[in-house]
């Protein structure tokens, strides 16, 4: 049983549960606490130090994402002093990256770094010096790895380890000469990467992006986002469909998707080319005299029904075996088994996801 305890945040008494961090409690009660290395799906890490808060009785500010809430704590989140240091930190982070337009912000949606820059009304003009390490020319088809824009929050590494358990990437080097690499620094295709794309959508900058989504020539605000459900399998992951001029250009995961909580697999994340494919079937066809010929739905249904019945009547129910598609919804799968049993008199029914 978790007991309710109380602490003070920005002068207000708030309740919290054992195990909660100060960041969680502070955000729940509406305080603005900026973060860059934090992702609620990951273990607290404490590297960006943006989430610092003042703790009564402590000499130095503490990172609230790693600080466990304790009864009686008295926390201040937004003093002028804290805000000034946060603002300096954002400026320092901006100084690490090149000053050109961020493709992530332009083509996919504002990245966390630039969102914070706006919040603190700062831009990249102080602390200028060397910039982050070079981008990687990775031949994989999906993930752009532009580490010039990396701020070394290691969220990509951590999501790959903690959530995906793929351990495909790691942090290398140290200090300013840090980097992100696969084991022995090969391409993602040669690593344990499953191309799930999770790292892209935890990355708070433009360092990682969907190759197909950037540089489509869009302007901010032109991209339309439609919430939907991934059509690939029965799991039902929530996705956002991005479209430009009525044409689908990409998918992003939905963090509050009830089944996936932001996770997607390689198919749901990147496998949408078929939507706009030339080869895609858009109407029923029947082969007539060796030629695929477009027909009406009614003709197609009659033709199929008649063929199926002749299979049953000429060869018996055992000649029929139904495999439901994993992409079909539950209702569709139900109909298929009903049809197999009631119409075809067969018990031979299966689902492709069973393998």
């Amino acid at each position: 049983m978790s007991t309710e305890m109380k602490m003070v945040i920005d002068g207000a008494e708030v309740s919290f549960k054992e195990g909660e961090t100060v960041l969680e409690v502070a955000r729940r009660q509406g305080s603005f606490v900026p973060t860059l290395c934090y992702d609620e799906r990951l273990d607290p890490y404490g590297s960006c130090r943006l989430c610092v808060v003042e703790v009564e009785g402590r000499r130095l500010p503490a990172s609230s994402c790693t600080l466990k809430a304790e009864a009686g704590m008295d926390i201040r989140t937004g003093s002028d002093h804290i805000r000034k240091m946060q603002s300096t930190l954002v400026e320092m982070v901006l100084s690490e990256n090149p000053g050109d337009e961020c493709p992530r912000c332009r083509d996919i949606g504002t990245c966390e770094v630039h969102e914070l820059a706006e919040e603190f009304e700062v831009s990249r003009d102080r602390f200028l010096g060397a910039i982050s390490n070079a981008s990687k020319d990775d031949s994989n088809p999906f993930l752009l790895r532009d580490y010039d824009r990396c701020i070394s929050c290691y969220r990509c590494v951590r999501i790959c380890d903690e959530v995906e358990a793929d351990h495909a990437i790691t942090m290398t080097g140290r200090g300013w000469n840090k980097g992100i690499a696969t084991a022995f620094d090969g391409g993602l295709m040669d690593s344990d990467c499953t191309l799930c794309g999770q790292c892209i959508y935890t990355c708070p900058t433009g360092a990682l992006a969907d190759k197909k989504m950037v540089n489509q020539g869009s302007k901010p605000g032109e991209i339309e986002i439609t919430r939907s459900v991934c059509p690939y399998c029965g799991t039902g992951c929530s996705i956002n469909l991005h479209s430009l001029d009525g044409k689908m250009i990409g998918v992003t995961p939905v963090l509050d998707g009830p089944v996936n909580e932001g996770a997607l697999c390689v198919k749901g994340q990147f496998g949408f080319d078929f939507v706009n494919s030339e080869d895609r079937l858009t109407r029923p066809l029947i082969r007539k005299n060796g030629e695929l010929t477009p027909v009406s739905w009614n003709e197609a249904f009659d033709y199929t029904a008649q063929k199926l019945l002749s299979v049953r009547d000429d060869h018996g129910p055992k000649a029929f075996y139904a495999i439901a598609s994993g992409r079909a919804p539950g209702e569709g799968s139900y109909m298929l088994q009903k049809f197999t049993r009631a119409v075809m008199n067969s018990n031979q029914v299966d689902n492709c996801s069973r393998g």
Partner: protein
Amino acid sequence: MKSSVEVKDPVTEKILDQWMEKPAPFLSVLHAIQDHFGYLPESGLRLVGQRFGIPVSELYGTVTFYHFFSLEPKALPDIRICENSACCLHDLDAICEEIVDKDLGIPHSGKVEKISCPGRCDVPVPILIGETFLHGAQSGAIEKATPATMPLPPEIGLEECLFKDIRNGVSSLEKAVEAGSWQSPKRAADDPEGFISELKSSGLTGRGGAGFPTGVKWEAVRSEVADQKWIVCNADESEVGCFKDRVLMAHTPHALLEGMTCAGLITGAEVGIVYLRWEYPEILESLQTAIDEATAAGYLGVDACGTGKPFQIVIRRGAGAYICGEETSLLNSLEGKHPFPREKPPFPTTHGLFQQPTVVNNVETFCAVPPIIDRGGDWFSQLGLGDQQGTRIFSVSGDIQRPGNYEVPVGTPLRQLLMEFAGGTFEGREIQGVTMAGVSGGLVGAEDLDVRLDPASLNDLGAMLGAGGIVVHDDTRCMIQAARESMHFLAEESCGKCFPCRIGTTRMTEILDELNSGKPVREGLLQEIEDLEEVLAETSACGLGLAAPYITRMLKKYWPQEIQDKIDGSGQALKEGSE
């Protein structure tokens, strides 16, 4: 290559079989593989990953963290030369130029690589080829490096604790026992409470920099209930300008082993690990000899010192990373994790090595324990001057007549240490300033040379005593350059985990370079320094970043005119340029 691919490497298999059952074998396994192949081959790392349950990507990343692990075969070793504060007072470029073509008696690739201070600041400039150290003085003479220089005899009337017997050949067990070594562990076993109260009354605090009371630390680990506990000796000594632990381990190793054994018997730990920095290969050998001797004589082993309790000591060798001197980073390094510091709390006393209760102490701290138990806590305590307790060792280097280690009462004036004990500056020169704590404790200017060497007095100046390294700069030196060298070291050694330190130490170095460049400096440069100081000092995740602002704050305190002159001078340059 995907990790599902099967790899075969009988050499690595054998090394793993030899080591896996030993305490904290990770670093030793990697060193053994590297010793065999000359580098860490992919096949070997894959097997290590499998046995240790570490994903190979993570292992790869961890290996790249260290300076002295190599992922590529090399026909001949490079020449490595120290670039830090005490050594860059010499003409490094000239030395480098000279050594590339010279027959140094050891085959090398002819490539010169700068490294961080290898703890030989009293005999600059150390040159490392493979695992052999040479030193090249400014004159160009290159000699085989001598073993750790014996400390000079103390001034008349000064009573020593740690160095008392050091000049009497006590590195051998026989001589050490003659001088009274290996008596204290029995006291630890018979009367642990009494032992701890002696330690407490002695006022002994950690000599690794943080200054935590040693008796309290041991008591905390003693009171923990756990299946296994550990004693770890922090012999990473990687701060620029610090070389005191080296001399202790070289010349009085049994004091260290005895101190660790006491800690084991007090707390119930059965294994002690010395985390030895890679750059002390000669200590690796001599300390192992001391361990072997003590084990053969029964001071270590299943019945340590006849107490009926087991205690063994092993050495684990680091691989070149200053941050691994930070105790939680050290523990991660031993465990085979990425050596970033851990979030504190929890502290090692409750969640140490493999999350078990652990005493981590500095070499000097352990060495002080046997004499304290022998002569009494009050004896040690009264060695200090005024309110201060005990003695401590300072490593003095740079522009000074007699560089070396000095054991002096806590509270000794800095001036006395430098001008009397260490012989003062060279003929016709004066001290302009010194670095503190090694370098991370900032700078003290000539006007404050009367400051007393105790933590509080240095804090009052705005600096930090730390681990007691002092690099002297005379009046021919540029103190902005000195500050730049200190900051550059921290930037090179920052682990890179937290933003303020990773970015801040690099930006500070760049800014100090800019000041020194003679070119026009950016507008608002002083404000940038101040803002960086603020986030470093208040938001960094560990002591490295937290300390960094001492350097620039002390620079501004003692040498404001020099900074202004640079800014004005460069302003001039700007005007001239635009005309």
